[in-house]
């Protein structure tokens, strides 16, 4: 109780002053300071979460009343959402006045009367929203006021830590200035930017294997670059392999095979033996032996393309789209079973 009263006294108001006058004066100070600063916390919407942190805020208020006054002053003229003005007013009062019981009603009346220069919806909001929230705030204020000295440094750090976390979670960017640091918009924006970059870097570290152990931005970046280059080299190498294999093979039925195979691959692991199943599954639906007959395949490309378009939309559910695929398996993985069938079908086709 004592520190609040003394702070109220220190700002030039004695205990004989009525609370209303004191508040009016203080708010005018804030408005002036706001016009002077024009700082980025003037983006009033940013204080939702800050004001939601009642305990830490109340503590902060006790220790840095000037800052909060400035900020709350910044809030009010902008006509923000209804909760803000009530919260701001409440928190301020919690910081300055120890007991509200006696002066409970009078500050409200003066609050609405005294803020002529401020926007109109505000006093109504503050009046309506104040009462239910007031007891909670008062309790927090009393609790935090009970032990200010030992918690001073810790609470300052907490107040530091929380808002900087908040800036990452919330859609709007707002960062509370840390103790002893500048509050100009440049440093705040820069800090937010740095945090964004660090968050992205952390996620990149998780993506690249073996990077989470490395500490230091430069080394991590080097590791990432090495990883990307090695992947690119792998792609080149594999493309060479594919180029070596490709001219011999036709690609008419491969998409069906691969759609099934990739479902298997994503499940984890893969054996060549699995492909024989696919080959045998496709045998029953085969109409054509693609390997021997390239010309016939060429004419089918159009149908296949249409089929592929349809398949792509269907493919989201199951890898069984090749049921409707006219051009089926191309590879005879199990020559013993598939070859005789191929031969029979060839005779019927040609």
């Amino acid at each position, binding site marked *: 109780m004592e520190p609040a009263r003394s702070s109220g006294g220190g700002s030039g108001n004695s205990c004989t002053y009525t609370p209303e006058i004191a508040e009016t004066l203080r708010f005018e100070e804030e408005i002036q300071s706001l016009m002077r600063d024009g700082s980025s916390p003037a983006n009033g919407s940013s204080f939702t979460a800050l004001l939601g942190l009642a305990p830490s805020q109340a503590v902060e208020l006790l220790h840095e009343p000037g800052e909060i006054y400035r900020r709350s002053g910044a809030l009010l003229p902008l006509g923000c959402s209804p909760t803000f003005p009530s919260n701001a007013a409440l928190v301020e009062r919690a910081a300055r006045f120890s007991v509200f019981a006696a002066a409970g009603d009078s500050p409200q009346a003066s609050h609405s009367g005294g803020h002529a220069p401020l926007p109109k919806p505000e006093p109504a909001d503050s009046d309506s929203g104040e009462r239910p929230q007031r007891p909670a705030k008062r309790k927090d204020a009393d609790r935090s006021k009970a032990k200010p000295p030992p918690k001073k440094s810790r609470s300052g750090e907490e107040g530091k830590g929380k808002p900087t976390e908040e800036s990452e979670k919330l859609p709007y960017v707002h960062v509370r200035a840390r103790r002893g640091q500048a509050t100009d918009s440049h440093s705040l924006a820069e800090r937010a930017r740095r945090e964004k970059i660090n968050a992205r870097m952390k996620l990149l570290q998780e993506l690249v294997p073996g990077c989470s152990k490395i500490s230091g931005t430069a080394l991590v970046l080097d590791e990432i670059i090495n990883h990307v280059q090695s992947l690119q080299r792998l792609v080149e190498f594999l493309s060479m392999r594919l180029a*070596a294999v490709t001219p011999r093979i036709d690609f008419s039925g491969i998409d069906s095979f691969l759609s099934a195979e990739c479902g298997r691959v994503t499940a984890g692991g893969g054996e060549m033996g699995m492909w024989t199943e696919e080959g045998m599954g496709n045998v029953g639906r085969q109409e054509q032996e693609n390997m021997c007959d390239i010309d016939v395949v060429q004419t089918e490309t159009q149908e296949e393309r249409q089929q592929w378009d349809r398949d792509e939309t269907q493919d989201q559910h199951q890898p069984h789209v090749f049921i409707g695929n006219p051009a089926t398996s191309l590879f005879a993985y199990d020559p013993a079973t598939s070859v005789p069938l191929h031969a029979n079908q060839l005779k019927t086709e040609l």
Partner: protein
Amino acid sequence: MLASASIEAGSTSGKKQRTGSPNQAQIKWRTGAQERIYNRRLIEALRAARGAARPGAHAVKEAADSALALTARGQSRWSRAILTSRLRRRKLLVKAVGRIRRRRRSPVPSKRDPAAMKVGRVVPGCRSLPAPTLLEEAADYVAALEMQVKAMRALADALSSARIASPESEAAES
């Protein structure tokens, strides 16, 4: 909390929209649907490339990269850059599809981390970019590359195994 939410959503839907979190990139590129789509495109591209120079390893690589960029649906800068570099005439179309903003070629060093410029050089189309965008693109690119490698390796293995099998069947039939 962001990561866990995105993982849950990713498991239910096959493809996720990019919301700016790099973990999204990882999840987006590892879904089975994406792999299948890429394989399809890869085969199409390979077939198209086959008409040109047959043993062209470069052609195969370019086809694979184009297929990868296509699978990205032009949502990322590197994919747009790849597609743009391939198609001379259809640059405008690709840019319109990708809804690319007018990229200001401003080599302003203030927002750029000189160490991060190295990353910009490796990722296609990300030479001069601010650091957070660059890192995002890099994460997406790494995830996409991993998927590409996996798919190409599977395809190469499949083809080589089939190639081993096919001469036998041909010999048996004839």
